[in-house]
């Protein structure tokens, strides 16, 4: 067992609370100064089945899982059956003695302890945490502090149960305290805070995994003054959001593939009416309903082409929790600067995974004001300007603001006049050109590693795993964050001297390779994974070596 890089798996049936227990374990390690990454695996059901959290706690940041487990915590028999094969030779098994028959490892009488002390069944997790804390050599007070923060109901009883289980075990390990704690955020939470920092005023959604976390998180954020509204379907959601944005409210919507598909007519409306809007598409494997609680990148081309008609939208795919914060903030600012739809494209493995968040990035996001009407001459919503951006103004004040889905004149009146149709499309083309320039002038791709003849390209949540493997193999890695307008110049610059481009993607058709091909980047080979599960370091390393 590496004493500074732990892999801990906790599993059970849905409803047994393994996710929450896993988060508390992560917070224990985070409090000791370890950097955290949690992959949560669960099925689309409410009770039963098998779910688990795989926690990586390491001295340096590692946003990916290892194949081998150091500590296996089993709330049920299924967890042992599924994961025992992945246990390290010197790994430790801790199990629910009341449910699991296992010869090796340490059994804790978690359910009987709860019964004995008159607790309720879900408190079995607290007993497990009590025993676990002792086994890894923590002081009880350390655990107590964390439990007091994490458990809102019946804390007295929980502490009593934890203490009893704690006292029954003996210390087997001693986890070193290596530093200060960092906040733990899911990708969805970081994304939410990023847009809040950029002035989010309204979030409208219809629940759909893996984007639902944004809805729940923002609805629960009491201090941030965000109006959260759940509407009857995704079509209502985006059309209402466009209405709100027309009045000047910074608005975001969020969904997954199917819901995103329903929104596409209105993406075109936002482009035509030049209404700023941020749309989150958090992917799951498709097509159709696909696999709701797993991950994939199969909406890439669809998202890049979403909306009918000639339009360009920003498409941004952050790669980790810090980028979620920074780029969701940028997305909101870009939406308002260019009065355009901006799509944040992500996936379950980033939306719902939990990471150590680096507070240093907080200063990178602040609300940037949009270009407003200066009142010097009559207001025209679609005034023809050189850079294609017409000043904004909002209804309810001293000018008429006419927005529209119809082709229009400068004032916003419908037109079918051939000259005006072309003029307006040309205005929007000038705006798209300005958007492209904007991307050329910001760091829209990440490049890791020095000169090597081979470079790996990936997007989104794959950053964590691919970066980790490329570092070990000494290969250059390129991660475009902005996917439209594609930062072609920056990508070509990063690829100077590279003769083999390998594309790693979580979809079946190699969609990113097609995007690269459109941008004059020839892909030598692709590594595709489309079983909904994340890569692990060991397997990906072997695959890359074999190319």
């Amino acid at each position, binding site marked *: 067992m590496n004493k500074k890089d732990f892999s801990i798996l906790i599993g059970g049936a849905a409803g047994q609370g393994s996710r929450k227990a896993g988060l508390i374990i992560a917070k224990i390690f985070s409090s000791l100064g370890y950097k955290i990454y949690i992959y949560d695996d669960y099925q689309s059901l409410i009770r039963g089945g098998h779910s688990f959290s795989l926690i990586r706690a390491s001295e340096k940041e590692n946003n990916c899982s290892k194949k081998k487990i150091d500590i296996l915590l089993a709330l049920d028999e299924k967890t042992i059956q599924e994961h025992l094969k992945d246990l390290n030779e010197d790994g430790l098994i801790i199990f629910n003695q009341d449910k699991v028959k296992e010869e090796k490892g340490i059994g804790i009488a978690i359910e009987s302890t709860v019964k004995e002390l008159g607790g309720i069944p879900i408190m079995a997790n607290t007993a497990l945490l009590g025993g676990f804390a002792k086994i890894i050599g923590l002081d009880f007070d350390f655990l107590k502090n964390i439990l007091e923060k994490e458990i809102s109901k019946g804390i007295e009883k929980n502490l009593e149960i934890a203490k009893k289980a704690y006292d029954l075990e003996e210390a087997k390990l001693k986890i070193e305290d290596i530093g200060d704690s960092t906040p733990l955020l899911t990708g969805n939470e970081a994304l939410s*805070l990023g847009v809040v920092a950029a002035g989010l*005023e309204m979030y409208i959604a219809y629940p759909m995994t893996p984007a639902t976390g944004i809805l729940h998180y923002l609805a629960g954020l009491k201090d*941030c003054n965000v109006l959260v509204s759940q509407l009857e379907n995704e079509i*209502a959601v985006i059309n209402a959001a466009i209405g709100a944005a027309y009045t*000047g409210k910074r608005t975001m919507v969020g969904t997954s593939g199917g819901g995103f598909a329903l929104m596409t007519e209105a993406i075109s409306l936002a482009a035509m009416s030049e209404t700023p809007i941020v749309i989150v598409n958090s992917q799951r494997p498709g097509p159709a309903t696909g696999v709701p609680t797993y991950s994939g990148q199969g909406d890439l081309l669809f998202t890049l082409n979403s909306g009918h008609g000639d339009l360009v939208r920003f498409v941004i795919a952050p790669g980790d929790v810090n980028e979620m914060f920074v780029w969701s903030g940028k997305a909101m600012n870009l939406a308002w600067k260019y009065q355009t739809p901006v799509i944040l494209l992500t996936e379950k493995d980033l939306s719902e995974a939990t990471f150590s968040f680096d507070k240093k990035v907080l200063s990178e996001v602040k609300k940037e004001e949009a270009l407003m009407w200066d009142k010097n001459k009559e207001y025209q919503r679609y005034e023809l300007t050189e850079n294609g951006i017409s000043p904004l103004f909002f209804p309810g004040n001293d000018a008429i603001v006419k927005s529209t889905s119809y082709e229009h004149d400068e004032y916003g*009146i419908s037109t079918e006049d051939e000259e005006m149709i072309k003029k307006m499309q040309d205005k929007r083309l000038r705006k798209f050109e300005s958007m492209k320039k904007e991307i050329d002038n910001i760091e829209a791709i990440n490049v890791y590693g020095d000169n090597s003849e081979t470079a790996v390209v990936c997007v989104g949540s794959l950053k964590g795993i691919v970066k980790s493997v490329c570092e070990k193999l000494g290969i250059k890695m390129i991660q475009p964050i902005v996917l439209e307008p594609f930062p072609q110049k920056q990508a070509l610059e990063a690829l100077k001297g590279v003769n083999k481009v390998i594309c790693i993607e979580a979809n079946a058709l190699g969609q990113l390779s097609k995007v690269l091909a459109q941008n004059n980047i020839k892909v030598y080979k692709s590594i595709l994974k489309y079983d909904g599960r994340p890569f692990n370091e060991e397997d990906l390393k072997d695959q890359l070596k074999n190319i």
Partner: protein
Amino acid sequence: MENLQTKAINTWCPGCGNFGVLAAFKKAMESYNKEDVVIVSDIGCSSKIIDYLNLSSFDSLHGRSISTASGIKLGNPNLKVIAFIGDGGALNEGISHLIHLAKRNSDITVLMHDNRLFALTTGQFTAVSPKGLKTRSTPEGLVEDPLNPLELMLDSNATFIARSYSSKIDHLALIIKKAIDHEGFSFIEVLQPCISFMDNFKFYNEKIYEIEEEKRTKQQARKLIEEWKYAEVGNIPLGVFYSEVKDSYEKIMNREIIKDKAVNIEKCLEAHL
């Protein structure tokens, strides 16, 4: 209010019922500040009205205009928001929104121009077209029975339900004013003859009558609403059938929101340690 004329050239067929709606709306607008009003339109002949009124406006998508309207109200509850929509937009493409907006008492006025067909796409049937109607998509005659939109609104808990007629400009203007002043969701069905595809001026002129303004229970309202079943028979009552006072969705949702409040992300992060 000043003249609401725009530069747009009117393209409705001469004699279209929509002219009456436009006149009535202009008349109703005399009672309001121009700045306080936002009009929203759908897609169809009826929706062209938006170009003929010099008011702040959002011309939305087919069936979705009422959702856009509710978003505008949510974004700025001080605005008076009126959505113009055809029966096709309201009862075919956008019927789910209509039901939910009524249910949540969204404080918008939906003015449904009811010509009982899709006019701009050349006369196909909608949910309120009479059974047997021969259109280019139903050459043998429509096999479906029509829906009663006012009954639908009553069952969806709309808090203001009325019907008027495009030829009764004063009546319609008054109903529009009442609907705008009503806090919460208001639905007006305007019988609007389409001289090109369903010229029923004569039919309406014979069948309509005005009801008294009075407080009614849902049951009483239902009885009046069911009087005309969108068929050849029965008289057609006009007026406000039902009205009820209830806090609007936007008022409730905006209660907690404080203008220009500084946001503290560091504080939010404390819960994540």
